């Protein structure tokens, strides 16, 4: 498959516009099942508080999967991704109730490499805190 964006058409500094991703408790339970990561801090308030957390927090891997959608949706082809790394800098606290936690993700093309590869910097915030640091995705384009 070929991504829908060509290497020659990408410019350093190109912005991938902000998208908002709501996360509710049910989303964490669904992710626990799909990923088989049943750490209770992701679904049990008591366990989260006993572990010293402010409340139930999203799986870091769910935040990581959510953030890279800016890149894979931009390209259409998730197979274009060759490298992806993040640091989890603050927890995404997901409250009990109707109001979701909202993760806001933005991207910027940081640099163009040889071999038709492009590096995209991602930022992800929740309630004002940076929840990901050094989040970078490298893609190979046609």
């Amino acid at each position, binding site marked *: 498959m070929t991504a829908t964006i060509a290497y020659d058409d990408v410019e350093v500094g190109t912005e991938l516009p902000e998208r908002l991703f709501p996360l509710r408790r049910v989303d964490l339970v669904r992710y626990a099942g799909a990923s088989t990561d049943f750490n209770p801090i992701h679904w049990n308030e008591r366990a989260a508080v006993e572990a010293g957390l402010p409340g139930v927090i999203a799986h870091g891997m*769910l935040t990581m999967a959510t953030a890279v959608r800016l890149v*894979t949706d931009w390209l259409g082809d998730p197979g274009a991704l060759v490298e992806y790394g993040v640091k989890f800098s603050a927890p995404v606290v997901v409250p009990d109730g109707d109001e979701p936690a909202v993760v806001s993700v933005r991207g910027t093309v940081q640099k163009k490499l040889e071999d038709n590869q492009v590096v995209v910097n991602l930022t992800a915030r929740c309630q004002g805190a940076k929840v990901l640091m050094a989040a970078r995705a490298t893609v190979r384009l046609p």
Partner: protein
Amino acid sequence: MPLNQDFVGRSFVSPVPYQVGREHIRQFARAIGDDNPLYHDVEAAKAAGYPDLVAPPTFLIVANPGTLGLPTDDPALGLDYSLVVHGEQRFSLLRPLVAGDELVTTSTLTNIRTVGTNEVLVTTYRYDTTSGEEIAVGTCTLVSRGSAGPRE
């Protein structure tokens, strides 16, 4: 209680190959709220040049032996999983995973270090198919909160 340093350098290999299944890809994609047709529609994936459904990039995490590639249920390691939060994660992919791939995953606990009252575990992953094709590598950093105990 501090973690058992004897585990540093040990590798953990999938006891049986991990088979990447269509329904698990769809279930995982739904769980991350991603409706990309290459994750759901076999015909769309084939039209795009793939042999079968493509797995989302972070799907690799479910192919790890144990939880996050560590024997978290082995009392000898001494890890209280409810104290664990994720510090860093990285994947490098030579090609995307597709349904039908059979993976042998090797995770290696490369380091346990103390940072304040926490312990930081670094695990590396290597994903190969059963026919010997290397697909991806990864690195995971976990933080075991408070397990180092009070500082001397």
